[in-house]
């Protein structure tokens, strides 16, 4: 089994799915010859030609809207939005079109498409290149939102997304693209959409996180376990919409404490939903408040302070301390 980075795993998955099903078409800005600004589609145009790996003009609404139109007529487009912050431009086509055509057509028309986009901070990009906006789509029925945290998951989840019959927003943590390698089977496998991953079992606290913050949380949790003699369960949510309630609830019922860590800004973010959910269905198991460690309620800031703005080790430590205060 070859060890590969997440970006390699994504590239491999796209290749495999395009080989497997010729209805799969990739489109997006600079994905052809250039292979994408992060090289996710590197080499694919050479393999599959310009008809299946298509460079588009700069028009995000058109990229998504065209993909919607393709999907409705039987293709299985995989569209790339170059950076997730540009998704605002395509918001109508995402939330009012892709998400609603099945409904609007009384179930007659499926829109099996995948929108891939790199997201997340910590690498000193220009403005609007680092935003975590998954919360907007959690609040948009009709879409699924998937966020892998490892090369293995990326391949399994992207395969699932491409074969899924609903529109899936597939968000790739750009800081993890090349952060580490992992053994990834070449052959076909799927990581089920909608199922969270209990990354590590524990007894005293449940930390719920996803995507980019997973390795960070793992590291911090390990430190607490070694230094403070506590046992921490880590849930990698993997799918943000629909949320895997069962996994979250049964964990919190066991540990009695919950911390949520995400890069999206705090207010109105996905952490709020998870907290509300636990409150609704597992309140009496809680020994103390559910704490959210999230980015501050400001626009994504300038590069020189982003590490202090994002949920970093220090802020997660304080969050854990707070949870254990009760």
């Amino acid at each position, binding site marked *: 089994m070859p060890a590969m980075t997440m970006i390699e795993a994504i590239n491999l998955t796209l290749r495999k799915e395009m080989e497997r099903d010729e209805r799969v078409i990739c489109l997006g800005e600079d994905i052809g010859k250039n292979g994408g600004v992060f090289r996710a589609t590197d080499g694919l145009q050479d393999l599959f030609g310009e008809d299946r790996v298509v460079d588009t003009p700069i028009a995000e609404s058109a990229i998504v809207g065209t*993909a919607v139109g393709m999907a409705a007529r039987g293709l299985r487009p995989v569209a790339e939005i170059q950076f997730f912050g540009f998704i605002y431009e395509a918001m109508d*086509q995402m939330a009012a079109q892709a998400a609603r055509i099945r409904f609007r057509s009384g179930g007659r*028309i499926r829109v099996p498409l995948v929108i891939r986009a790199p997201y997340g901070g910590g690498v000193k990009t220009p403005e609007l290149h680092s935003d975590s906006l998954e919360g907007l789509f959690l609040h948009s029925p009709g879409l699924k939102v998937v966020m892998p945290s490892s090369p293995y998951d990326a391949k399994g989840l992207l395969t699932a997304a491409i074969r899924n019959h609903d529109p899936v927003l597939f968000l790739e943590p750009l800081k993890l693209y090349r952060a580490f390698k992992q053994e990834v089977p070449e052959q076909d496998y799927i990581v089920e959409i909608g199922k969270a991953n209990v990354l590590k079992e524990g007894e005293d606290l449940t930390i719920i996180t996803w995507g980019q913050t997973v390795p960070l949380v793992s590291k911090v949790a390990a430190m607490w376990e070694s230094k403070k003699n506590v046992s921490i369960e880590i849930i990698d949510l993997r799918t943000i919409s629909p949320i895997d*309630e069962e996994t979250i609830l049964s964990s919190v019922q066991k540990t009695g404490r919950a911390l949520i860590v995400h890069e999206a800004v705090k207010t109105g973010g996905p952490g709020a939903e998870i907290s509300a959910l636990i409150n609704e269905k597992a309140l009496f198991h809680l020994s103390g408040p559910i704490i959210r460690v999230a980015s501050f309620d400001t626009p994504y800031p300038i590069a020189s302070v982003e590490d202090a703005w994002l949920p970093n080790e220090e802020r997660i430590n304080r969050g854990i301390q707070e949870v254990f205060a009760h």
Partner: protein
Amino acid sequence: MWLEPNEIKVKMVQYLDENGRLISGEADITDEELVSLYKWMVQVRVFDQRALKLQRQGRIGTYAPMLGQEAAQVGSARALGKQDWIYPSYREVGACFVHGFPMKNFFLYTMGNLRGADTEGANVFPIQIIIAAQCLHAVGGAWAGKYNKENSVSVAYVGDGGTSEGDFHEALNFASVYKLPIIFFVQNNQWAISVPRTKQTASKTIAQKAVAYGMAGIQVDGNDCLAVYTTMKQALERARQGNPVLIEAVTYRQGPHTTADDPTKYRDLQELEQWMAKDPLKRMKAFIVEKGIWSEEFDQAEFTAAEQKVTEAFELALHTPKSKIEEIFEFVYEQKTNQLIEQQQAVAAEEVF
């Protein structure tokens, strides 16, 4: 070296004058087709008037009348082949009917019934409410059609107001870059709710917007069904070869924007009267009567038959089971999420008081 704003000259295609006399040349069309175009216009008009009445009676919901635009809709849709696709907005129901969308189902749509979305096999995309969004779906559809070698042209219907949206621009640009089999059919009915065409854009014609995309454009008298039909045939030929086309059909919205609108607030009766003189049905009828293939007698029979069809469609709709709240959970995803299952079950919970 300055390209001055109004350097471009656009000449409108016209076959019939306001009195239904052939202006120039001969149109390449059979008598049967001529009669069929007219019959469809009658059907659309009769439907439109009934729908308006039903809305006033509170039996169907908000409705956007097509009065005055029958030639543009019928002429364009009759030119299509069965394999071609229509991407309509809310005001293209006439074109949809011509292309096979069942009238009954449109009534269901206006009644808020999920079955109103059923096209029963016709190549008609769901009605779009968001202005110009359908243009991009048509682009994707044309692309899929080309990819799958369907020999199918996609037609995006959009209004004069719709040309101002970003999606319109992005759609035309994509279509032309990828050489897609697509036609953008703009019904320039002079108004976008209360905003006249002249305030919508400063370009003299909408047809000339094609220039921005390296695409062919044409302006046609949208109240001249023969001109629309013939132009659409030509456009289809171009589009089938991968040359996208922008058509501006110059027509007029004789009625209100929708049943919720009161045009007396913003437009002159005079303007309306001028356009009534150019009414598409009147014109076509004069032409075919003059040609000896139609008569007053046929005409009355046709109106009666059309009324009958509308009545039947409405009755069928009326007797279709109503949609239930429980049903809606079925159409969000391929498989219901746990959240939806829970919510669906909650719907059936007992009343508190």
